[in-house]
């Protein structure tokens, strides 16, 4: 059993069996309030999966404050259960969902970009192209930021259709983790995908008051 958690857009928690069967899926689409809802969502999901073997966590990109709530919860939940944590780029979860849905309907997906709101007049995007032999989305470009007005031109350069995502499925994060574990692969590093440095400037000389 794998617990999946993602707070890069809303707040989502899921539990899946190792073969991919979804045991529980809990979410709140409120773009704020991650800290308020994550405990109850996690408790409900873990009731359906009382003996998790792994915790899969969406590492972003996403608004930092909310993103960190999910990562903090996942890390310390995993510590409390004594199970390993599996880091997954949140866009991988979205891409996997798109590719599986298209496969079900026999639709040819082609090259596409997962696009999420990065605030400050920017989008975060990652380009994907199909599933590989491990059943994982083929990531053509790593997650990056683009000014809103430039995005379509950039995606055209990549030959990628645009897929705007407004939620991330925690079940797909968990499924991506399961497939990565089966293939003995690592999908993301341990650091959140912030994509931005902290928004600060070094101290300047004090302002004159007289």
């Amino acid at each position, binding site marked *: 059993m794998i617990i999946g958690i993602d707070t890069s857009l809303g707040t989502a928690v899921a539990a899946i069996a190792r073969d991919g069967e979804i045991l529980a899926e809990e979410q709140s689409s409120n773009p704020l309030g991650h800290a308020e809802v994550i405990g109850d969502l996690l408790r409900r999901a873990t009731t359906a999966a009382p003996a998790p073997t792994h915790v899969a966590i969406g590492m972003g990109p996403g608004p930092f404050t909310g993103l960190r709530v999910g990562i*903090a919860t996942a890390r310390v939940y995993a510590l409390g259960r004594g199970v390993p944590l599996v880091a997954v780029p949140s866009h991988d979860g979205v891409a996997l969902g798109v590719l599986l849905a298209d496969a079900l309907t026999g639709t040819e997906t082609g090259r596409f970009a997962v696009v999420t709101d990065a605030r400050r007049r920017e989008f975060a995007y990652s380009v994907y192209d199909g599933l590989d032999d491990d059943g994982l989305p083929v990531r053509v470009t790593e997650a990056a930021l683009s000014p809103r007005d430039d995005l379509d031109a950039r995606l055209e350069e990549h030959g990628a259709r645009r897929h705007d995502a407004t939620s991330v499925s925690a079940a797909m994060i968990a499924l991506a983790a399961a497939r990565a574990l089966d293939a003995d692969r690592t999908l993301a590093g341990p650091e959140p995908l912030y994509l931005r440095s902290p*928004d600060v400037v070094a101290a300047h000389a004090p302002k004159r008051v007289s």
Partner: protein
Amino acid sequence: MVLMDAPLVLGIETSCDETGIGIVRGRQLLSNTIASSMDEHARYGGVVPEVAARAHLEALQPSIDAALAEAGVTLADLDAVAVTSGPGLAGALMVGVGAAKGLAVALDKPLYAVNHLVGHIAADILDADAAELEYPTVALLVSGGHTSLLLVRDLTSDVELLGETMDDAAGEAFDKVARLLKLPYPGGPEIDRAAADGDPTAIRFPRGLSRASDMAAHRYDFSFSGLKTAVARWVEQHEAAGQPVPVSDVAASFREAVVDVLVTKALDACARFEVPRLLLGGGVIANKRLRDVALERAAAAGVAVRIPPLRLCTDNGAMIAALAAELISSGRRPSTLAFGADSTLPVTEIQVDEDPDAVAPMLPSGSAP
């Protein structure tokens, strides 16, 4: 109280720039692990919330591991988890709240969401060498994030805010004046060093909110931004006149103004409420001049001063765990899982979101409150 029967609580504190993990058994301190991101803030001249929040996320796991090792206990041994819900920096608080919920759900243990400021008072009960805390007591809490004067009638049920800063916290004022004097961050120890051979009476800087006309509305409130501006103006005028700035005298006179107003208002509260007890807390209590003046003037006023061990005065998780242990011992139920971070949590909310449907943790016989 039989110590072995007291609740074993792990406390998580992330309200500012210290990631604090503490473990207590009732009033017994077992570990107090603190990871600070202070060095990362130095080049910005003050705490940067996003930098602090990122550092908390990275420090959590290693700090929890270190605290457990120091205490010689395992997560399975814990009776409860405690966390700071506020006040503090929202993004920083949320890291701790998420972590605490993850831990409580993983262990299926009760979770207590508590008030950071009241936690500073609870630090006092962990002092094994001190006599029992007597009520009521006036508490003066001074740090880089807060400057508050409280009347504590009971740690777990009755804390009243008498006054607080209207602008900068005292610790912030030290940081800002240090920058004016071209001294590094954090300003407290630097001002102290500079003040060591300065004359505290050299310059008479203003005491904020201390005029007779302030007494009606702001008798116990503080304001340090006018003081900071007065120091800036004094320094600028000296520089404009081509005179060297006597850094030691400025530092000593500034520090004296801060200390004077803090101690005067605290002792005024003791007198007015006829409470001969004053508890000091918060990181700025590390300032020796503040402690010396408080002790000297309190003794003259017949007020007994309590100061927790200094490592428990700065922000830490042990004080959060200690407050939760007191709540448990007084029969309080755990919090729900629905609380969030409240950056302006009032001090009257000692525990946040007590769950009316939960049962209070059972304490072994012999440990009834």
